[in-house]
């Protein structure tokens, strides 16, 4: 079952009604049942794999808690985390080691494995106690809105919500958030994808235009695609009555690469900070700047390799870590310079986002390009000039791309709505008059009827989400 489908909307609506009418103590059973039903529409066999991994971690955590303070706890934690890493690596590496193209990879395997690892580690570190009941824990691991591509929510922020009343007030917010996600994906990302796809197909044309389009538009496509997917996931949770952590915080407004990675895929980067960077940095704290550079590079390489074990992703990770290391090693010098030259702060705020966008755009070529040769071709073509600009542009916007330009004004509009959402949320003011309240309800209902009819009548459906494959 796809997020962008009429079936998903019906499934979510029925689950949300069930969630509200069933007693509090049955909620986790309902979520567990519906999440596994959702999973079984992809692969019942892989649902069994998910259940086994969940059960293994549940019992390991209980044992870890019983052993806390003893040396056996350390051995058990290492064994548990190693088993999960091997489990994830097996599914991630299998396509590389096998020639078969029909290999099944468990849906959302990265996301639920990360949830399980952090849970085990938190129990071992003594930050949280092990969950005593299996059903709420299994419902947390398999929670269907977050199964496909996160956000990676920690168990400590999810489980208490299952016993909370007052979920009704978030439905409007959730529906608006989901609509924003649908718009990002189907109007912006898929249309930008047409331009980017055309550009990668025309890198041999002897003109710089395909390279320029691919270089500058792919980061926007990726952002609209992934943040749209996150909006649908967070919105679905709100419709049910659960809150999830944010995954993006206006990443292209960042003034440094370090800040960018604090604003992009935030639940993954904070997960890696807590469970990879901090332990590695603690172990290497006596190694001075080399320890810092090593910790940052390991962290960034893992972020890159998580997307796939290819040479392109290795270059992607190393390229980003160059900037992260340079920024980390010059923190105090830059801070002193800013204090001595107050104007430099204003200049950095203006120039920083432009610099960051260019670095991210160059790095993203290694993310999107099918091979390093293709990436090299893209950069080499930038020097080809724009002598045939008129005919190139004509080719770029010819069918099936002739309506794709709508993505650019739509992106500007959606970005403005997103700024409003971050500042004020999608909530109606408490004292909003009744006529305003009902006109909003009416508009949102009409909008959703339209979206549902569009999805029902869509033969092709939307393109798959880029991040759903990780």
């Amino acid at each position: 079952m796809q997020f962008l489908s009429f079936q998903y909307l019906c499934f979510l609506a029925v689950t949300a009604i069930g969630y509200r009418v069933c007693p509090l103590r049955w909620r986790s059973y309902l979520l567990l049942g519906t999440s596994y039903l959702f999973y079984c529409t992809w692969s019942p066999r892989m649902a069994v794999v998910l259940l086994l991994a969940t059960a293994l971690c549940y019992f390991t955590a209980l044992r870890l808690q019983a052993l806390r303070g003893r040396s056996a706890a350390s051995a058990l934690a290492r064994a548990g985390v190693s088993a999960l890493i091997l489990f994830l690596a097996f599914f991630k590496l299998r396509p590389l080691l096998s020639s078969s193209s029909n290999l099944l990879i468990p849906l959302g395997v990265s996301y639920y494995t990360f949830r399980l690892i952090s849970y085990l580690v938190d129990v071992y570190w003594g930050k949280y106690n092990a969950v005593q009941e299996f059903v709420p824990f299994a419902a947390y691991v398999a929670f269907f809105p977050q199964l496909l591509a996160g956000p990676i929510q920690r168990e400590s922020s999810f489980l208490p919500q299952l016993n909370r009343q007052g979920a009704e007030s978030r439905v409007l917010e959730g529906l608006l958030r989901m609509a924003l996600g649908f718009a990002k994906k189907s109007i912006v990302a898929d249309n930008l994808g047409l331009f980017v796809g055309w550009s990668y197909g025309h890198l041999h044309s002897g003109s710089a235009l395909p390279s320029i389009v691919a270089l500058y538009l792919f980061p926007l496509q990726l952002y609209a695609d992934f943040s749209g997917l996150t909006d649908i996931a967070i919105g679905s949770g709100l419709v049910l009555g659960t809150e999830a952590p944010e995954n993006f915080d206006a990443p292209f407004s960042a003034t440094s690469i370090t800040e960018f990675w604090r604003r992009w895929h935030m639940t993954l980067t904070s997960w890696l900070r807590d469970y990879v960077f901090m332990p590695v940095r603690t172990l290497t704290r006596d190694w001075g700047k080399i320890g810092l550079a090593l910790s940052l590079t390991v962290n960034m390489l893992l972020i890159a390799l998580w997307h796939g074990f290819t040479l392109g992703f290795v270059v992607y990770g190393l390229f980003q870590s160059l900037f992260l290391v340079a920024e980390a090693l010059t923190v105090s010098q830059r801070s002193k310079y800013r204090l001595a030259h107050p104007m430099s702060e204003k200049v950095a705020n203006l120039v920083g986002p432009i610099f960051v966008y260019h670095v991210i755009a160059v790095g993203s070529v290694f993310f999107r390009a099918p091979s390093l040769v293709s990436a090299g071709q893209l950069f080499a073509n930038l020097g080809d000039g724009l002598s045939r600009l008129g005919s190139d542009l004509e080719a770029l916007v010819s069918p099936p791309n002739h309506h794709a330009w709508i993505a650019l004004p739509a992106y500007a509009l959606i970005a403005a709505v997103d700024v409003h959402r971050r500042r004020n949320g999608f909530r109606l003011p408490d004292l909003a008059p009744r006529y305003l309240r009902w006109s909003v309800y009416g508009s949102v209902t009409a909008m959703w009827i339209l979206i549902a009819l569009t999805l029902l009548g869509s033969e092709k459906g939307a393109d798959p989400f880029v991040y759903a494959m990780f």
Partner: protein
Amino acid sequence: MENVIAERLTQTFRSTFGKSDIQLSRGTTAADIKEWDSLMHINLIVAVEREFRVRFTTLEVMSLSNVGDLADTIARKINKE
């Protein structure tokens, strides 16, 4: 927090973060000090280790939730020696 540990800890925080107005309580966390990010956290741990002449294990560092935990771990290590 024991007074002596609290006092030395406050001084260490002030010199690490370069802010003379830092006031600590047992419940103080990274969220309360703007400069206290993941990079500065390790600088702080190294500074605390130097100040109190102790050595934390990775598990001890990762288990810390707030300043109270840090003070308790320091006290435990000093008393052991």
